[in-house]
């Protein structure tokens, strides 16, 4: 699954665009990185791509095996149903749902959430429960049958919700900020497996460049709202603009 951006811009009240991408494509290389200084517009770009933020101009389209969908007319939930979801930079959650219920919510199809289902009684979906058990075996929560407690647990749950949703394309906005190192490694390992088995393509926003160089096949560099460079990690590391603007050399 690939995302195309055409003349995509976003400006807030001040008028000066925070994002301006005349032409760009994400998701051609399995696992990609999106890097750039704070305030470069990385989160804004991800919000535009998933229709959480409405663009000022331009179009976003999603290409899967068979079709090209223009996302502009769609709402957030339509985009998710096409298979595109994102994890959040800022902690997000459902405070009255337990870890398991939160995962069940993400894994359950909207077609099963009906008024009639209230009457007929909704038996547990064994496949979903097995999936949840699998994730909770792999990732340890302090109280796996209760609520996510720390910020780190909430952040991890946000990632697992997206995983269990089984998207075709996943955008991850600073997923490892706030996660302990071993959890980060396990998350990246899992992401790597899913990409390798072609279950999903993934784009990661990260400040931890070692992680980017290690896992990503391709990297986009964003600064002041524009994609200034993209290429393999090797090329990006060598690039003078990236070095000057970001790595403080």
């Amino acid at each position, binding site marked *: 699954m690939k995302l195309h951006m055409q003349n995509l811009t976003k400006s807030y009240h001040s008028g000066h665009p925070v994002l301006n991408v005349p032409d760009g494509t994400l998701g051609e290389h399995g696992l990609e990185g999106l890097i750039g200084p704070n305030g470069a517009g990385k989160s804004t770009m991800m919000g535009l791509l*998933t229709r*959480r933020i409405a663009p000022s101009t331009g179009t976003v389209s999603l290409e899967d095996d068979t079709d090209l969908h223009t996302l502009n007319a769609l*709402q*957030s*939930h339509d985009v*998710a*149903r096409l298979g595109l*979801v*994102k994890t*959040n930079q800022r902690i*997000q*959650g*459902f*405070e*009255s*749902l337990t870890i398991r*219920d*939160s995962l*069940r*919510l*993400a894994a*359950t199809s*909207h077609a*099963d*959430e*009906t*008024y009639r*289902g*209230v*009457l007929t*009684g*909704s038996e547990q979906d064994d496949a979903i429960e097995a999936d949840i058990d699998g994730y909770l075996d792999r990732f340890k929560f302090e109280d796996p049958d209760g609520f996510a407690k720390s910020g780190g647990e909430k952040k991890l749950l946000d990632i697992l*919700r997206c995983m269990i*949703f089984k998207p075709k394309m996943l955008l991850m906005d600073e997923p490892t900020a706030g996660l302990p190192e071993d959890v980060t490694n396990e998350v990246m390992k899992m992401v790597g497996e899913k990409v390798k088995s072609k279950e999903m393509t993934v784009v990661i926003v990260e400040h931890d460049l070692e992680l980017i160089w290690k896992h990503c096949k391709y990297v986009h560099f964003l600064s002041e709202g524009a994609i200034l460079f993209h290429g393999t990690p090797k090329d990006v590391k060598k690039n003078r603009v990236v070095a000057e603007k970001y790595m403080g050399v």
Partner: protein
Amino acid sequence: MAYLLFSLSLLLVYVGLAQMLHVQFGLLGIPNFGVVGFWGFGMYFVGVLQVQLSMSFIDAMVLSSVLLAVISYGLGHLILRLERQAILCATIAFSAIVALLIVTEKWATMGVVGLGTIRYPLRVFEAEEILHFVILLAFVIGAQIYLMRLHKSRLGRLMVAIRDNEELAASLGKDTFRVKLRAFTITATIMGILGGLSAALNQFLTPNMIVPSITFAVWISLVLGGKEHALGGMIGVFITFGIFDIFIETYAPVSPEFAVLVPNIKLFLYGALLVAVLLYRPTGLLDRDTEPRDILIGSLGAIAASITAVVTGLSWIAKGFESLAARAKKDDDA
């Protein structure tokens, strides 16, 4: 007896309204402050059709419900994407419009003169009041069973998720607006059906029945009982309306001279109880995980305690006034 039956029927209507508000506000976070508007629409519409057009109860009820469903759907479309404060204002405005139309559209509603007499829908057995009570009871029990199941269902889980974080739910493929719109339309229409059932109960309708204090009473009950618990609305109504209105007004040993004071004392106690609950138990008496067994024990205890407290308090107050009166009389004599 007839009066008690009337009061108990009215209590069931309040329970029904609180159940619907629980879905709207407790589960979905939609602050409907126009409860009386939906209820009043149903009550007057069913009343007008029956009295002015001699329609049967069933026909009037069906017509009124269809119309209210369309109106609620339209209203929901306009307001359910807005901020909560805006929804609150818009629903208050809706109920104000309903109340105003009832006064101004005299050709249909008879305005302040009042509309009557509305007969009970079932007149088979000479026991129409009891039958009507049974209908309401069945309605409320049915709704309660559905609510309990809703809480354990996928749809219920989705509703709670939407209340907690609508944007996040949408990003997981949930059409949150549609879920809210449907639930709002259904529950608002049921509020109207409860209104339709209240028409016969009141027999004679006047515009001063459509007052915001009904909305407040339902809200206070729900908040007091626990807005997130399936039984919260019901328990809240039992405590507010059941104890204060029915029990005290019917049974409290107050001498007739001081009976006029009871409504004021009632309001005062209402308020004090609400403040106490909000201070010490902001989730309401029942929080979202309270077990049924605890509810039973707790509510029996609470009912016993409050009845004792209220009765003792009232008789003390009554005694105090009596002695005051006696002293005043003595002074006069002297």
